[in-house]
Every structure is written in C-alpha cells, then in structure tokens.
C-alpha cells in the first residue's frame, strides 16, 4: 500500500474469510476473474477439439476419443456435437458473461463511482457462489451416461428433448445454464442498485466513466432478459424430467417409431422465440461492457477526451433498447411469419447504426491524440478493428434474403467470433492489463503482453477470417465431417490451415496467463497510485485499494472522467477529484 489507509478499522481476517467467503467486491471480482480464466482454458481446449476434428476428420479421434472415453478412431458425431455445444456454453455462460459482468463489474464499478462496496455484499458473494455450482453441474455432465449436452448451445427442441437426446447430460446442461443465469441476475440487481444509489458526491450519471455506463445498461438487459431464458430452460427441463410437452408437437417419430407417453400439442418455434429473447440481448451483454472498457483504455492511452461522450452513452442505450426487438433475426430460416421476419430485418439493420456511431467516435477519439502503444492499448485497438469486421459482416446476415444463403453456415460462426473473440476477448485482455496494477500493485510485463497480443492478433485472423469464405461457399456449421459432401471436399486444406492457426492461438494464451501469474509476484512495482495518469476515481485511491475503497471520506467529484490534455492544467490529465478554482460538485 502506497498511501497508508486511514480507514483501516476492520479486524484481522482469516485466510478463508479473506480469499474464499469474502464479501469485499474487489476479492469477489478477482475470484470471478481467475475462475473465468480457468474456464477460458477449458472452453479453449474444447474449441481445439472441434478444430482438430475439422482439420483431420480421419485421425483426430485418436487423440480426442481417449480423453472422453469414446470408442473408435473417428470422433463420433454425438461426440463432436458435445464438443461444440460445450465450447459455446462454457465460453458464453462461464467465461465471457462472468468475466465482464462478474469480474470487471465487481472490481471496477464501486471504485469508479466512489462507493465503498456493492449495495448488497452478501448477494454479491452469493452470486459468485452460485456461479461455482453452475460450473460443477455443467462439468459433471461429461461424466454421465450418454455424455453432456449435444443440442448446440441453442439446445433446440425437439432434438434436445429426451426422446431424441436421451441421458442426463442434456438435463444437467439445462440446470447448469439455469444456475449460471441465477448468478447473473444476482449480479445485475447489485450493479443497478449500486450505481443508482451509491455514487460519490458530484458523480452525476453523465460523469460516470464508460465502463460503468456500459455495465449499468448491461445489468438492466440482464435483469429483463435472463428470467425469460430461465423460464425456457425450466420448461425444457420439465419436458425432459416430468414428461410435459411444451415443445413437442403431435405425431412425431423417433427413428421411425411414433413418440408415445406425452400429451403433445407443443410448439417447436416457441422455444426459439423465448430462447432468443434472452440470447440476443445476451450478445450485447457480452459486448457492451467490453466497449466500455475499451473506451476507457483508449481515452487514457490517446490522452484525449472520448469523442462524443453523450452519443456514446446514447448508442449503448440504443443498442440495448433495440437489442430487445431483433431476436427474430436468428430465425429467418425457421419458417416464422415472413412479415415478422421483415420487421426483425428492419430493426436489425437499425441496430447497426449505434454500433457505427460508436466506431466513428472511437476513431474521433484517436484523431489528434498522443497515442502510446502499450499492450493494453494494442488490445483495445484490436477490439475496434476486429469489431468493424464483425459489424460489417453482420449486414450480410441481417439482410434477410442474403441470410437465406449464409444462415447456419460458417459465415455466421465467423461473424460471431469477430464480435465475441475479436471484440470482447481483446477487450478483456485490455481491461486486465489496464487494471492489473490497481489490483496487485505491479505492472504486467509489457514485452510478454505485446508478444501475446501480436500472436493472438495474427492467429485470430488466420482462424476466423477464412470462416467467411467457407460459409459463403456453403459449408454448414455444426457438421462433424463436412467432407461427406463432394462440394466441401476441396475445403479441407483451408480448414487444416485454420486448425493449425487455432493451435497457435491456443498456445499464445499460455503467455497471457503466465504473464499474469508471474507479474503478480515478480512484476515491476507501480511507482504511484495512478500509474497510467488516468482521471477516474479508481486511480485516486491507494494501491491496492483498502477495505472500504477510499481512506477517509469518499472523494468529491468535480468533472467528467475524460479531461485528458485539458488546457486548464499543465499536465495532460485532470482527475475527477481535483478541485480547480470555480469548481463545484
């Protein structure tokens, strides 16, 4: 601790109460961060299994099958379905959402708004301790008869119903996802309450940093949409466990034999509507906080105010609002009412607008800046450039008639990975590198950070850009051995190149984790509490922040968080807490 805390009144705590059952938002944030990183490794390895199969369909089974206890030299179709189902489920439910809305939201929000802790510290701890069982439940599904969930992360009935996917694995998947959703709702309640009620004096809504704004709006999205997913998961669970038939119509067959023992009369498309009512906003839940993080990092390392702060906030709000009325674009080929499809197409076209505004504002932020290419900044800049590709490829997908060709192909897979890996994951790397000195009092190693960034950036593009080519050529997603089709046979070479790049991409992540762990113990110590010369409140408190976050009274805020290079002062930054003559809170 560089500044001695004057607020150090709490009694000495045991190892368990400090590191395990802690109710301190900073510790819970770190718990989320390390757990999510561990899951990142799991999800990544599952992805490598998928890539291995697509690159070497005849031989990959020799390496993959022994791990899961599958027989034969080739990966069985069901096994491949498990690999990609669990890859997506782990990455979405256990990595990205907990990382952004568990780790960053917890660690950063109270510090940025000048709160001493979350509004409900116990609920906060409970949120983490609901997330852990969710992991265990999802992981346990691999060890039951029949294997884990294998209906894709979208788990479309009737395929995911017990008549077509027997075994407890799919049921465990439903319960695990439900549990993760409960954790996410608890977090959301906490962030909304904390941000609305516990801001420091002078911290008006329009003086909040973008990270906090993004997490605030994301929490609202989570609160409104996650319960809907919960209801869908619960309905499918009762279908599987109690024999109801919410999603099973009459007169169906399983391998030619009629389905018996259920009432029938269900609606297949109802699942898709309810599921995507959550899962489309979930896409924004997975990108908005990263947009906030990147805005903060870019302003700091360009030494320039965010270009168009309010439009940035409004566009996050716009994305969130429109995000609720675009879910049908996942269903263009599903056979829903075509006029509904047109409506969803128009709303989807328009959600590109706030995203475009944000991109232009980021460019405006860079324009005329004094840019330092630190590893945090490189990752943030990668977010912007990759998000541009992800956004533009989205126009192809949004155009209903064009989507008829690329729907359910690798084009879509490429699109979402440009948004969620090229976007969010680079945002996460930027955020961790940026706040690491505040968390641990030491810098992450710059050399290793840049090496990790460079390999990740190159390998990422080698893995995911060709997916657009595969998809437009008509290669379906979720196909274990595409080379059963004559017209896809020539694609093997490209797939193999992508798989090799994927292994490089996976290996590069070891550098990041090593860098984190090594820097925690041996990294260069920070020379001040504000190593990046940043403006927002988290940098105006000791490093690491004490219990209660701010020694003495909570600081008063006099201005917005982006007054970099202000002509009012000699330095190129002006913290929110600095009182200049004429300032009032």
């Amino acid at each position, binding site marked *: 601790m560089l500044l001695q805390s004057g607020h150090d009144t709490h009694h000495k705590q045991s190892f368990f109460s400090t590191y395990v059952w802690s109710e301190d938002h900073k510790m819970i944030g770190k718990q989320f961060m390390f757990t999510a990183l561990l899951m990142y490794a799991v999800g990544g390895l599952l992805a490598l299994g998928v890539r291995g199969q697509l690159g070497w369909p005849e031989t990959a089974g020799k390496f993959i099958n022994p791990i899961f206890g599958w027989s034969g030299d080739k990966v*069985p*179709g069901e096994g491949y*379905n498990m690999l990609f189902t669990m890859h997506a489920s782990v990455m979405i439910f256990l990595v990205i959402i907990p990382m952004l809305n568990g780790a960053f939201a917890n660690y950063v929000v109270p510090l940025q708004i000048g709160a001493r802790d979350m509004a409900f510290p116990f609920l906060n701890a409970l949120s983490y301790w609901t997330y852990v069982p969710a992991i265990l439940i999802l992981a346990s599904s691999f060890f039951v008869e029949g294997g884990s969930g294998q*209906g894709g992360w979208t788990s479309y009935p*009737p*395929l995911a119903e017990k008549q*077509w996917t027997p075994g407890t694995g799919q049921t465990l998947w439903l319960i695990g996802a439900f549990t993760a959703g409960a954790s996410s709702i608890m977090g959301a309640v906490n962030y909304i309450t904390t941000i609305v009620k516990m801001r420091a004096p002078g911290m008006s809504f329009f003086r909040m940093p973008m990270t906090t704004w993004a997490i605030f709006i994301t929490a609202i999205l989570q609160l409104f949409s996650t319960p809907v997913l919960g209801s869908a998961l619960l309905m499918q669970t009762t279908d599987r466990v109690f024999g109801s038939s919410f999603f099973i*119509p*009459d*007169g*169906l*067959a*399983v*391998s*030619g034999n*009629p389905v018996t023992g259920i009432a029938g009369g269900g609606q*297949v498309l109802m699942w898709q509507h309810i599921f995507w009512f959550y899962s489309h906003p979930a896409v924004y839940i997975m990108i908005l906080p990263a947009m906030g993080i990147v805005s903060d990092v870019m302003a700091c390392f360009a030494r*320039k*105010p965010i*270009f*168009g*702060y309010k439009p940035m906030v409004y566009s996050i709000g716009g994305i969130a609002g429109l995000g609720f009325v675009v879910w049908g674009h996942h269903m263009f*080929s*599903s*056979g829903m009412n*075509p006029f509904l499809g*047109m409506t969803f197409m128009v709303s989807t*076209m*328009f959600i*590109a607008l706030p995203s*475009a*505004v944000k991109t*232009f504002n980021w*460019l405006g932020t*860079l324009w*005329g*800046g*004094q*840019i330092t290419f630190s590893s945090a900044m490189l990752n943030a*800049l990668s977010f912007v450039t990759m998000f*541009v590709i992800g956004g533009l*490829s989205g*126009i192809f997908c949004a*155009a209903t*008639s*064009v989507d*008829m*060709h690329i729907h*359910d192909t690798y084009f879509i897979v490429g699109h979402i990975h440009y948004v969620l890996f090229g976007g969010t994951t680079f945002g996460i790397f930027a955020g961790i590198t940026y706040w690491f000195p505040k968390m641990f009092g030491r810098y992450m190693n710059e050399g290793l950070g840049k090496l990790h960034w460079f390999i990740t950036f190159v390998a990422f593009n080698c893995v995911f850009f060709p997916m*657009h*080519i595969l998809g*437009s*050529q008509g290669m379906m997603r979720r*196909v*274990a051995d595409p080379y*059963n089709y*004559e017209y896809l*046979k020539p694609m093997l*070479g490209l797939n193999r190149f992508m798989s090799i790049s994927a292994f490089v991409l996976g290996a590069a992540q070891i550098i990041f984790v090593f860098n984190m762990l090594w820097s925690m113990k041996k990294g260069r110590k920070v020379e001040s509490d504000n190593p990046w010369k940043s403006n927002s409140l988290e940098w105006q408190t000791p490093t690491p922040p004490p219990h209660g976050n701010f020694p003495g009274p909570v600081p008063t805020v006099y201005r917005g968080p982006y007054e970099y*290079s202000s002509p009012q002062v000699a330095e190129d930054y002006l913290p929110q807490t600095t009182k200049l003559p004429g300032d009032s809170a």
Partner: protein
Amino acid sequence: MSRFPKVGVLAAWFLAAAGVVAQDPRLPAPKDGSSYWLPPRFSEAYVPLEIDGLWNNIMVVVTITSIVVYGIFLWCMVAYRKKEGQKALFTHGNHTLEIVWTIVPAGILVWLAFAQMPAWRQMKVPQDFPTDKNQLRLEIFAQQFAWNFRLPGNDGKFESFLSDKARADAKKWLKENTEGGIDDPSDPSAPGRIFEDAIPTMPKLRDSGKYWDNADDDDILSAGSLVVPANRVVRADMRSVDVIHAFYIPSARFKQDAVPGKPMDIHFTMSRVTHKLDEKDPTKLVALYYDDVWVDGVKQEGQRRDFVLEIACAELCGGNHTKMGAKLFVLSESDWDKWNQAMSAKAAGENDRKNDQNVWRLWNNQDKVRPWERMLPPVPKYPGE
C-alpha cells in the same frame, strides 16, 4: 526386340487413355454464374439472382466502409504517435460530424432494408410466390437422417398410400371415437388430406402398418435424390417427422428449416441442366459435367467424377447430421417428362408396398432403404380435438 511389343502396348495404352479423355462427352463443371465468393449458381430465378445482386451491393458498401475506417485508423496510428512534451487535441466532439455519420449510415441501411424486401416476399410469402400454372408439386419428408421425396407421377396427383381397408377402418374409428362436429371423410368438401394425416394418430391403424398400399398409386418415391426439370417452379410441401432439419441447396441459394408440426410451403427453381437421360433406359441418368476428385484435401490429378448438385441439411439434427445429404439432378424439360413417365409407369405397375420400395431401391441404387411405412407424417390438425 522383346521390348518392342511392350513399349508398343504402353504407347497404345497411353494413346487410348488420351483418346478417352479427349472423347469424354462430359464438360468441366461450370464455375460461372457466381458472384465473388459465392458458389456457382445453377438457378436463374428471380430470388437467387436478387440474393447474389444484394450480396454484391453489400460487398461494395462494406468494402468502401472498411477502406474509409481503416484508412482513418491507420492514419491515426502513424500521425498521432506520442511525442514528448506535446498535448493531444482537446475536444469533446463535433455535432455536425456526429449528425453526418449518423445520417449517412442510416440512409444506406434504409436503402438495404428496402432493397431486400421483394426477394424476401417472393421467397416466403405464399401470396407472392411465382404463379406459373406449370409448377411441379413435390413433397419433402425430412427424418433423421434422410431426405425423402415424393413426386406426383404421371397423373400429377399425389395418391393416397392407404389401402381401401385402411380407409374403411379409419372411417369406423372416427365414428366410434369422436362425437359429432367432425367432418365426414366421405364428404367431398371435407379436407381429405387432413383426414389422412390424422390416421397415424389412430392407435390401432398406426400399429398395423398396413395402410401404405394403394392400387392406383403412381407416385415416385425417392430417398436421398431428387430429379427436377429445369426452368420449372418446384413447389414443395415440406415436413419433418422428428427434429428440425434445414433443406439447403447452395447452388440455388435456397434454405428453409423443416419444422416438425409445421408444414412448410416452399418453392425453388433450377435453371442449368446437369444430367440427360440414358439413350437405352429412360430411368437412368447420365452426367453432363465432370468435376475434380479430392481425397484428404488434395486434388487427384487425372481423376474425374460425375458432377452432381447437392442438397444439405443445415440445421443440427443429431449424431449423423453430417451424413444427411441428398443429390439433386436437373433434367431438361423434355427429358424430365420422359423420365417422369417411365418412373411413374414403373411405380404404377408395381402395386404393393414391396414394389414401391423396389422402384425406389432401383432408382437410388442404395442398399439401405428407408421404410416409408414407418414414416409417420406429422399432423397439423387432429380431427375431433
């Protein structure tokens, strides 16, 4: 001396091989008809043409946007690197600029939104479907893991698979198990198809497995392969009996999910002929084009295979999803008429279920025949409920 004949044989063999290649009646598979990135197009119908046009338009928009954005971005990277002792430009934004970069993309997006509507309507809205009288009716039954097709045959009508006995039993069952208010199946105004669809839900009949046997049935059944005439609208009633599948023809830019419990009214048109009839046997098809042979990602020099279009399943449907493909053969209209007559006559001449299966096996040349009698059509409406 002794080597001479050997060399001669070799030379003759080479000449013969070269001659065979030179005389290959097939042409190389067409690669044209495609826009940049997209696979060759075998349909010149309105919808696929629109899709390719839109694709190109969006590609232009996207390319220009990328050049502008990355141009500015790279300029910033080079021009605004940190210089010691200098401060950044202090600005919080620019209203005019904000308005411009909101209005311009909005305009482009509105244009794109409206540009795609006509194609979408013709693709999906039954009232806007092509109105040609000459449409070919088709039934598609999807099941794990096969595409089953039924063409109406020579008489242009789908016959019932039901034997007279099954019909009588069904009528009796309806009488016993429903109370008034239900359509009499013998009433000509009652929707007969619904009546027939309901039969599989009648437990006794369903389990007897005897109702696929109709004397005047000349419908052409096939699994895994579909033969259509060029330049005729194919209008299909598509159903799934188990999980969701997606009927995908990459070369026609066509895709539609087959949703259990929800019959889909779809249409597509193929334009380029890929096969002709065998001169001796009008039930056999000969490929017009050849294509390369690829093994393990490597093109096999000097090897050729018959080129045939493919239909794929694009929606995850279980463990063997990857094997749920089908072949699509496009004949000229006159060839198709001959083929249809021959196949239909064959089907009509073979009246019982077993022969239906045989026709089908003959045509598919597949050892594994999907048992139609176990294929239960889904029931959209249940009389009596």
